[in-house]
Every structure is written in C-alpha cells, then in structure tokens.
C-alpha cells in the first residue's frame, strides 16, 4: 500500500501573527508542520509499524522553505518526499489539483490531510482532492483502523460522532484524537538525510488561481485586564459579580 500525506508548513500556533503592509509576514517566525497534518503522518507511520507493507510519501506545495517541513516528516519516518516548488500561495481548490495529480502518478491508495489548515482555517483540501480523484472521503477522523482494503473508525460530524467503514482508495482528514505525533529522534533525523526529496515545478500541474487575497488585519480586541487576587475568595467573588453586573452589565 502507498500512503500520501499532504503537508503544509504554517506559523507555529504559539507565535504571534505579524502583519506588515496588509500582508501576513512569516519572516523570522517559527514555522512548523501543521499539527493537524502531523496526525496524518503519525497515522500513516502507525499503519506501517503495524506490519502492513506501506510506503509513506509526503507532499508539500510551496516555497523552498517547505523542504524543512518535509525533512521533519522524513525524520519522523516517512519514506520519501515530494516538493512542488512555488512562491504562489495556493488556496485549497487549486492545491488539490496538484495533490490529485501527484496521487495519480504515484498510484496512491490512501491520502491523509489535516482536518483544518491552521493558517487558512480551511477544511477544503481533503474533500477537494477526493473529488478530483473521484474517491470517497471521511473527514475529522479521530480513530482509524485498517483491515485489508477496508478502513474503519470514528469521525466527528455536525452533532456528534459516527463510526464509519469505507473501502480503499480513500481520503481521510485527520485531527487530534488520533495517536500523538512522534518526535523525530536523532537516529531518524540522521537516516532522513539520505531519503529522497524530489523537487518538482508547479507549471506542469496547470493550476489556475481564482481567489485573490487583498489584505489581512489583526484586530485584537482591547481587553480590560481587571484581574483580582483571589486569596480572599468571597471578597474577590463579590467584587467580580459587582463588576459584571454594574460595570460590564453582562449578567442579570
């Protein structure tokens, strides 16, 4: 079996978002593999660890620095990586076109991708890729098992969760609840250096961009920061209730 994991390099969630002249500026910020995508990598590795004959291929589409993210994934244990290099920021719909073509070329059986992108806050990549490949999809998967050609597991839906079963090939979008992503260990990092990281150019995929980002802004709401010391609980509580009732007027 061959698994494709779609990887995106994003701003570490703990970092401050910097906006310069109306654009998000990642320069100098800590960038990481999107945590949601890491769950997919981990899941792929677990399937391989369980004894199934699996090759795990990671794909990233983006600027050169994405290779750092791919190295991380190789260091976690992926077998090889493909980097489609471009300075263009692709939204999920054109991005899925690249992912689908690579999946086809590589004869992929199972695709993992994060349930939500932590930079574009989008849920669309997995579904759009599945559509292009005419594959079934299951999103927000929090538990997964492979039995031969069948995948079973649990996933979140609007008002709860469901147990599902689907035949390969398929697309799965991942999230917390699946196994915690492993750290690259020193020996794996050393080994990863020798693994294949193939670089492709974007032009061969014929994507066309239909969305334009005009500008970005952070409006942090100014907060009052009236923090009381709770050593004297009744007094602090009384003061808080008084503030919420008469100053903020938010409770009856």
């Amino acid at each position, binding site marked *: 079996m061959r698994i494709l994991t779609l990887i995106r390099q994003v701003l570490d969630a703990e970092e401050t978002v910097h906006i310069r002249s109306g654009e998000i500026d990642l320069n100098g910020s800590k960038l990481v593999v999107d945590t949601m995508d890491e769950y997919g990598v981990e899941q792929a590795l677990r399937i391989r660890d369980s004894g199934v004959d699996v090759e795990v291929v990671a794909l990233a589409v983006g600027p050169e620095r994405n290779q*750092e993210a791919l*190295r991380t994934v190789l*260091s976690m244990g992926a077998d090889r990586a493909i980097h489609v290099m471009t300075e263009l920021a692709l939204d999920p719909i054109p991005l899925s076109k690249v992912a689908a073509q690579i999946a086809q070329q590589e004869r992929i059986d199972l695709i993992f991708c994060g349930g939500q992108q932590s930079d574009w806050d989008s849920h669309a990549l997995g579904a759009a890729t599945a559509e292009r490949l005419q594959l079934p999809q299951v999103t927000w998967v929090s538990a997964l098992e492979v039995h031969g050609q069948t995948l079973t597991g649990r996933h979140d839906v609007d008002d709860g969760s469901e147990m599902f079963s689907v035949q390969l090939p398929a697309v799965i979008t991942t999230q917390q609840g699946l196994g915690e992503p492993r*750290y*690259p260990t*020193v020996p794996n*990092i050393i080994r*990863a*250096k020798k693994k294949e990281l193939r670089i492709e150019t974007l032009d061969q995929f014929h994507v066309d961009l239909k969305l334009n980002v005009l500008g970005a802004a952070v409006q942090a709401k100014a907060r009052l920061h009236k923090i009381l010391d709770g050593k004297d609980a009744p007094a602090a509580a009384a003061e808080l209730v008084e503030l919420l009732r008469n100053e903020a007027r938010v409770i009856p």
Partner: protein
Amino acid sequence: MSNPATEKMRRVTGGSFLIEDLAPEDIFTLEDLSDVQRQIERTTIDFAEKQVQPQIAAIEAKDFSVMKGLLRKAGDLGLMAIDVPQEYGGFDMDKVTSALIAEKIAICGSFSVAFSAHVGIGTLPLIWYGTAQQKEKYLARLASGEWVAAYALSEASSGSDAMNIRTRATLSADGKHYVLDGEKMWISNAGIANLFTVFAKIDGEKFAAFLIESGTAGLTVGPEEHKLGIRGSSTCPLILADCHVPKENLLGEAGKGHHIAFNILNVGRYKLGAAAIGGAKYSFRSGVRYARERIAFSKPITSFGLVQQMIADSAAGIFAGESLVYRVIGAIDASLAERDKTAANNTAEIQKHIEEYAVECSILKVWCSEMLERVVDQMLQLHGGYGYVEEYPAERAYRDSRINRIFEGTNEINRLIITGWMMKRAMQGRLALLPAIQRVMDEIMAGPTPREEREGELADQHFLLANAKKLSLFCAGAASQKFGSGLVDEQEIMGALADMIMEVLVLESAILRTEKMQGSSPLAVLMVKCYAARSFRVVETAGERVLGAVAEGDMLRTRMTILRRLTKHEPENTVALGREIATAMTAAGRYTLQI
C-alpha cells in the same frame, strides 16, 4: 557526523584570537547550522516545551520519578547519545549539536543540570577513559537514559582545590577490590544515579577514578541539600565506608585520575555556556511577554525607555553570547574534523583537540554565566513585585541561574585559568603573545597613528575591537613587566586581564557573525553596536585597574595617556539603538534576529 560548514573552516589555535584577526568566513555561526542540526534542535525544543515545561512544578517539588521519566524520554529521542561512539549505540556527532541540545533543554534549570550532569561529567569519563569492557557494560544504558550517571569529585573540604581530595582507596588483601573510604559533597544526580564516577587517591597518593554502581555495599547517598535554586535537581553527599569496588572498575590509569577530572571540565564549561544562552533566551521570552501585557500609567510598560533599556541590554547580551558560544564550539568541531580518526586512541585525540581550546572553554563558562545573571536580573526587575513571587517564572530563573557561577570551576578559578593559560602558552612559545605585545608597544611608542580607514557598517566597532586587543596586550605587557611570573599571585590583575581577554573574544565573535550575516538581519547590526559600546567600557575599566596597580607617578601618567588614546572614540547613540531593539523584541515576544 559533522556539519560540512565546519569541515571547510580554517583551523585556529586556542587563544590566538587575542593576537590574530579573523575574517567573517573563518568563524562558525548559528546561521551555518546544517539541516540535521536544525532538526535535532527542533526535536529538543519540542521535547523541552511540550514534555519538560508542563512538568516543572513536579520537578521543582523533587518528584524524582518525573525527573527520571523525562531523562528516559530524552534518551529515547537520542538526545543523550550525541557524544557516544557508534559502537555503543551512540551517534558520535559534532559538538555544536550537543551544544544546541544543551541550549534548548535549558528552559528549566533543574532539568538542565540533571541532564548535563548525566551526559557531560557523568558519562564522558567513561567514554574517554573506559576500557572496552567497561563501555560494553555501562555505556549503552547511559546513552539510552535507562541509567543515570553522576560525577563525584568535590568534598566538603576541597571544591576548587580538587587536587586535595581526601577520599582514599586501598587495594584489598586479595587484590580483587579497591576499598574506598571518604565523603563526597554536592554530587549532582546523586539521589537518582545508577552509576557514579568517584575520584579518590590510592593510598592517599595516586589520584584515580572509579566506576561505582548504586547499591554497592558501603556506598550511601546522604540527604538532599536544600538549595537556593535548581531545587528539582538532586544534590547530595556520598558516603563511602569500606566500599568494595571491583578492581576492573578502576577508570583509566591509577595516578592519572586528575587528568580525567580536569579534562572533562572543558566540555562541561562550553556546554554550560550553551545552556546559559538557552536559559537567558527563555527568561527573556517570559520577561518580554509579561512586560508587553503589563499596564502602568495606562500604557504597556514596554513603552517606557528604562524598561526598553533592560530589554535591549539583555537582547544584546544574548546575541553576543550566541555568537561567542557557537563560534568557539564550531572552531572545536573544525579542529576535531581534522583529527586522525583512525588513531588507535580516538578519544585521546578528541581530548587533545578540545584541550587546545581550554581558554575559550573557560571564557564561555564565565562570560555566559554572568550574561545569564544579568538577563535574569533584568527580566525579574521588569516584573516589578511580580518578579519577586513564585507565581511567575522570573523568580525561579533568578534563583536557578546562580549556580552557574559556582560549579564547573568557580568564576574566580576560571578567570585565573584564562589569564594563566595565556601566560603559560606564551612562555611555552606556543602562542606568539610576547611578540604581539612587543609589536603593540612599538606601535604605541612610535606615537599616535591616524585611525585606520575601514569600510563598512561596523567600521567603528572594528576600531573598538582592534583597540581592545591592543589595550589588552598593552596591559598584559605592563603587568608582566612589573611582576614577571609572580603575576599569578596578583589575582585581581589576573582577573582584570581575564575580563579584557573575554571581551575581545566576545566582541570579535559578535562583529564577525554580524558581518557574516551580510545584512540579512538589521537587528543584529543594532545589537552588535549596543554590545560593543558596553563591552568596550568593560575593557577600559579593567585596563585602568591594571595600569593603576602596576605603575605610579610619571610612568602611570604616560601609560594612562596611551590608554586614553586607545579608548578615545565617539559614543554610539545607544539610547536610540536600544529603543529600536526593544521594539522589535517586544513585537516578537521573544529573542529574535528578524525585525
């Protein structure tokens, strides 16, 4: 495995920074890290922030099961096997990598000390001096973190004066065991260790080291010390009473144990330097984040100049420290890359190459521990009253940093080593210090020379650096003229010279690194300018101190004229620089090189 960047680098001899000038491409900097090094750094950061940090409260409460668990996890990640040879489950990697790990793990002082006592002074003696059998028996277990190691040299009556230990070893009647008696003090990891490297004198004379497993009859771990800082790291006395150690557990040669004891310290010192950088960055981050949230007089306190000054001063110190640490350790790697890897005694070769940089190692230890102290102090200060209570990490960082000036050789002892080592090398003719001093003297006596024209953004800083070198050589010359070899007993002068020597290395590292960055970080330029101003004052003050003590009357006046001539310069606008640095750091919420 090592970084190709260091393999290409020119090899420099230890101490030569005082008399030679290097070009930016001759030094290693953090910007030169290889992919592999960056990945290992990332793993360490993730481990420290996601595994260690949430457990800090438990660690500080001396829950040793947590500490052992974390050490084990670090071992599973391979973080403890960087210096370990491949045949014993290690990776035998470069020293920059192990320094990066030391730096990134240093977000919690207690854990950092436990970790480095284990991988450094705990494990290295075995790697360097162990027989194949000894390594076979213990090394893999130490490298994986399954076992914890400790190093027991100090005693109640001999810390700095380590040659004077009283613990005795005698060969048993049947010749199968050494029997040890004595008491060790301040042993890091004692309460959790499985293997101790214990130093003793055989028959009260021959200095020797022994590998002793915990649980050996006659070995007792005393009660935990109640410490000012690093409270979560175990520190206890060891009592050896009729402790029978199998003869095959003698480590290295009898009579040469002090080599083991001291050679290990070079590594401990440069790693301490790296760890201090990590501690400083961490403290800086929480300080700046606090400051930008804290409102006083209806403004975030980061808008106040004197708060900005603390932030900028700390940041510039960290920048200089980073430049220093990775330059020196990179140079060690460059030197190690040249070693004869086929030599029968590979580890002896490694030691020889590290020992070459003993003076740099001591500089890292002293300078970085003092930089750290300045940073944690300023970060506590900008917390105001909240810095003084346990709810905020500033208080712990302040307490935890203090040990760094004490162990691995006190900063006084290391200052004496710095100047003393340079003098010794000069006497042995291994370092061309004397001709260099002569040249400076000649140049100075020839009267004022016009300032050398130099291009580039850091021309003024280069000028300060060149003069700092000259002034150091001039003062060293004046001091040795007066005291000759008796200078070693003039500790205050040795100390002042050490301060000058240190600043030369630090300032040069920061300038060269900034130039090597080729404008990619405007912030680095601001910081090196800020740091140069401060550094040069240190040199000037130390110079005055030396001159004031070695001459009087006309002689003193002449020399002070020379000092004035060498120190004359227009000050940078450090107020404006500081504001700009602080603004960038505040926006980033941590130490950064990118505006």
